[in-house]
């Protein structure tokens, strides 16, 4: 079933770094499945993989030709929408929908009278209408009678002893605390003996995903008992599961789900959510295709969010910069749902004595959702800030302190590379006299993911040498199509332009949801195996054609060779296919135990703070990341750029603002919910330490999430360096910066 393959893995580039760190390359032996392709060794000469192949759908996107769920308008389309509660906690006493039903063009109305709503925006009624105008009029005509109930929308309010409870019967109130870790005494002892201790409380705010394309779908039930759904989802293969297909009245197996293009997900779009299920019900009820896309306000309220956090941390260390222990008590709220447990992320550094309790707090706010590296940006902000506080206490270089405690060999090389490119020493030496102060900071990133089985990728070759690669997974904007085209082109020895990639259609084999930064590393190896199968199939046809044993046909890059000088190009071999097609499949095999299992990264930021106004601008960022083997530097850099920009936005601007008494969001628009814009973008330099990681036949690992993990922390540390005082709450708004400066000892 398998063969043993010994090959060299490790750092592929940049070259000078490889020369300086010979230990980052080594030989390993793995058990390769018989049907799988041999992994590429670290020094493999590859033609397309690792090259900057432009996005295959770039033109469609920039010209507007790309079709998003919003753009799908099947004949006879009806429009649906929902009405959200303005109260954070209330009973829906009655919904009077008579006026709404009377609006010309209204097809159906659903109401949720009797429902106890536990967050603002929670759906209390829904309408389906002939056109958007009738829909809007009908939603406005709904009269809902609420009995408002007391609510608590902040973590602190929800923890008050007399706070109203999200789950009424729960004796522990709104606090969901895990059992106390048992090693408290030992850790306290380590702290008591430690020469240096620093403690601080850090806070982060709720960040909404703010996908440009809001959540939603178009659902259509066909007379033959099948259904088609176009969904803005990062899990096309599973969208129609469960309640959704039940409401649709069509078994999941007969529902075709499509995601041609995706306008952002960031973790918030796994599976059908409540409004999607409502759309499915309307589609069945009206017999019409129905589109339901959330308007921006509800997108902010219901579309998911990164929970906030309160993190009380204490770090103990030696006088010369070695960490001895970390204690932490954190609280976070993901509203009604789970997942708000502050943050962890003590895992980058060597920390011998660790005590950490992370509690979730239920509040009367809409549920959180996975958001690009759940918990990490907030956790790294706190811990990396505390490390800088410790370094400042010692009068030590915070970069040196990190390097002393960082066991990861790749990140050690990255710190070195990043510091050099950034000009760390010079940036740290700078002291400004005027009101504009510059500062430099850094922080680490980590991630752990090499993709996973068991996905299948279909590959079809036709006589005209056209290749089609297909899987139901969605390209949520990362460039998956482009990467798969390059991997297949590499294996077949043809140009990527010859390879068409079809993603986001459940007629093709199921694919993974885009989560955990796993999609590329999950599918690329299967695509490569499929291409290998295609090569073998073509070789077999040639053998038959040439009348030689199959074993005697070899396929070096870009063609085929047989005995006695016989040769055929890929195109010539394809001609033998005739009217048929060659259809093969590749499988994602289980990961091997590669030696570079945890991806590493670090970022450096320089900021300028106006000490009179509190306005922070990020001037430049150097981001160093490992993503296993970088399959396409262009799309990889684009991931890092996006992660960095989203991280800066988190550090400086983004905050879901709720009225504490009324519980509703006062900034649910894209002008009042501030997001980093073009004019605020710094120069971002991305350095990729490509690394054959040894887990799969492509060497690929994940990148989308780690790219945003350290940014806010690096920016916060740069602000600390600029001001000499920490701003301990994100986002670092002018008000917070000025308050921190005011409290600073002068």
């Amino acid at each position, binding site marked *: 079933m398998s063969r043993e393959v010994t090959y060299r893995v490790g750092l592929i580039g940049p070259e000078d770094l490889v020369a300086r760190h010979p230990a980052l390359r080594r030989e390993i032996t793995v058990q390769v499945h018989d049907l799988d392709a041999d992994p590429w060794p670290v020094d493999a000469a590859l033609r397309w993989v690792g090259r900057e192949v432009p996005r295959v759908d770039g033109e469609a996107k920039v010209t507007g030709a790309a079709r998003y769920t919003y753009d799908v308008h099947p004949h006879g389309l009806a429009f649906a929408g929902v009405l959200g509660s*303005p109260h954070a906690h209330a009973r829906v006493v009655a919904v009077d929908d008579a006026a709404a039903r009377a609006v010309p063009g209204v097809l159906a109305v659903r109401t949720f009278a009797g429902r106890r709503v536990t967050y*603002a925006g929670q759906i209390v009624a829904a309408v389906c209408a002939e056109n958007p*105008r009738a829909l*809007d*009029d009908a939603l*406005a005509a709904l009269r809902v009678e609420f009995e408002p109930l007391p609510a608590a929308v902040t973590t602190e309010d929800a923890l008050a002893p007399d706070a109203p409870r999200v789950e009424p019967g729960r004796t522990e109130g709104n606090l969901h605390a895990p059992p106390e870790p048992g090693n408290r005494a030992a850790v306290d002892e380590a702290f008591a003996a430690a020469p240096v201790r620093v403690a601080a409380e850090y806070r982060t705010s709720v960040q909404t995903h703010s996908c440009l394309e809001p959540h939603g779908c178009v659902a259509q039930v066909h007379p033959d008992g099948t259904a088609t759904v176009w969904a803005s989802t990062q899990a096309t293969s599973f969208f129609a599961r469960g309640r959704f297909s039940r409401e649709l009245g069509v078994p999941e197996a007969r529902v075709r789900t499509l995601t041609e293009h995706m306008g952002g997900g960031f973790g918030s779009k796994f599976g059908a959510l409540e409004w999607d299920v409502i759309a499915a019900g309307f589609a069945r009820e009206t017999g019409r295709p129905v589109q339901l896309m959330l308007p921006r*306000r509800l997108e902010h309220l219901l579309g998911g969010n990164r929970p906030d956090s309160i993190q009380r941390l204490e770090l103990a260390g030696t006088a010369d910069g070695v960490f001895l222990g970390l204690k932490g008590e954190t609280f976070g709220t993901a509203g009604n749902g789970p997942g708000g447990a502050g943050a962890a992320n003590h895992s980058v550094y060597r920390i011998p004595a660790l005590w950490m309790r992370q509690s979730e707090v239920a509040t009367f706010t809409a549920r959180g959702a996975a958001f690009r590296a759940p918990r990490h940006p907030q956790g790294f902000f706190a811990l990396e800030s505390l490390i800088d506080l410790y370094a400042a206490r010692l009068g030590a270089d915070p970069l040196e302190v990190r390097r002393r405690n960082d066991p990861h060999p790749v990140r050690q090389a990255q710190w070195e590379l990043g510091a050099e490119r950034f000009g760390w020493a010079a940036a740290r030496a700078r002291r400004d006299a005027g009101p504009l102060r510059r500062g430099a900071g850094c922080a680490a990133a980590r991630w752990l993911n090499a993709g996973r089985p068991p996905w299948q990728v279909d590959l079809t070759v036709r006589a005209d040498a056209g290749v089609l690669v297909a899987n139901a997974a969605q390209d949520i904007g990362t460039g998956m199509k482009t990467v798969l085209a390059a991997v297949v082109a590499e294996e077949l020895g043809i140009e990527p332009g010859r390879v068409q990639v079809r993603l986001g259609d459940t007629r093709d084999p199921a694919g993974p949801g885009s989560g955990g930064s796993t999609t590329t590393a999950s599918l690329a190896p299967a695509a490569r195996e499929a291409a290998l199968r295609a090569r073998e199939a073509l070789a077999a046809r040639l053998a038959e054609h040439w009348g030689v044993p199959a074993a005697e046909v070899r396929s070096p890059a870009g063609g085929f060779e047989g005995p006695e000088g016989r040769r055929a190009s890929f195109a010539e071999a394809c001609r033998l296919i005739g009217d048929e097609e060659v259809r093969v499949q590749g499988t994602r095999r289980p990961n091997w135990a590669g030696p570079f299992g945890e991806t590493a990264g670090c970022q450096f930021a320089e900021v300028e703070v106006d000490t*009179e*106004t*509190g*306005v922070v*601008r990020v001037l430049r960022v150097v981001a160093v990341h490992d993503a296993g083997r970088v399959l396409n530097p262009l799309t990889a850099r684009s991931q890092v750029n996006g992660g960095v920009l989203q991280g800066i936005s988190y550090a*400086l*601007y983004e905050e879901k*603002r*709720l*009225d*504490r*008494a*009324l519980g*509703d969001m*006062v*900034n*649910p*628009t894209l*002008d*009042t919910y*501030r997001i*980093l*814009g*073009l*004019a*605020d973008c710094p120069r971002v330099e991305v350095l990729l330490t490509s690394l054959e990681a040894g887990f799969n036949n492509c060497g690929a690992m994940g990148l989308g999430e780690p790219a945003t993990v350290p940014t806010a922390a690096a920016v916060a540390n740069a602000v600390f360096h600029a001001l000499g005082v920490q701003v301990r709450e994100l986002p670092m*708004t*002018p*008000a917070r910066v*000025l*308050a921190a400066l005011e409290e600073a000892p002068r």
Partner: protein
Amino acid sequence: MKAFRFLRPRTLAEASEALRREPGAVPKAGGVDLLDRWKERVEEPEVVVGLCDVTDGAALRLEEDGALVLGALATLADLAGSDLVRRFLPALARAADQAASPQIRHRATLGGNLAQATRCGYWRLRSFPCLLRGASRCPVREPGGVQETAGIFANDPCASAHPSSVAPVLGALGAEILVGGGPEGGRGLAFEALWRAPEPGRSDVLALEPGELIRAVRIPPSAHPVRVGHAEVRQRAAFDWPLVTAAVGLTLDADRIREARVWLGSVAPTPHRARAAEAALTGRRLAEVRATFDGRAAAEGATPLPGTAYKAGLVAVAARRALADALERS
């Protein structure tokens, strides 16, 4: 958005006539502000008078007496790009150029900018109570209120803030407003007379008579040298309103300040005139104010809420910087 009847007059005179004829009709210029209000159904006009086809409202002219007349339908991009404005009113050109984003500046008109409504989220979202929309109290002022961008002057009973960053510069330039447009012509209004103080249950911000429109803004000529500077505190560099805007206009007698005009934006329900700062500057020598003016006089009379305490400091900084800009530039 509720459906409305849409009228499309060709001239300002026709537009005012339409407004007079149709009580409750609303003039729409670029629609940058209005469309959001309508979509949210904060306002549901029955009749809208579109100014998109009006051909006599966008001119930027230098009059014979040296006055500059800026048509209300000129866009912010027109102002920023006009040679006339850049030459004679550079601070205005810069303010227009820093507002919003390129796309918005090509759509947003001068008249609409002055008449724009507050950005207060409570007013702009129908689901929130708001004093101006009939609630008994202003929730921004209550303990749970989100206050960061609220007003710090004249903020009782309504804590809204007029967000224009262009208005303060016009105030500092000593601008007057030409309103009217009917066949009988128009009238001139002192700059501050354009706005009304907020009243419970009333959302309109302008003190115009029924049927009146802003026709133009007139910058009168000055017999004395004038220096104008402006400064904004912006959290984001674009696609946003400043947290605070300050503009300073100085009329000079040699090196002495004959008259000072200090205007602030985003701090009160209407553009706010900082009279104490004007008094602190008037009659002083330039060298003296350059050395001593710390801007704090501009914040005199502020009554910040807990969440806006920081804005009083920003006002002082912005006023000081606006003065430095005035002294440095012109």
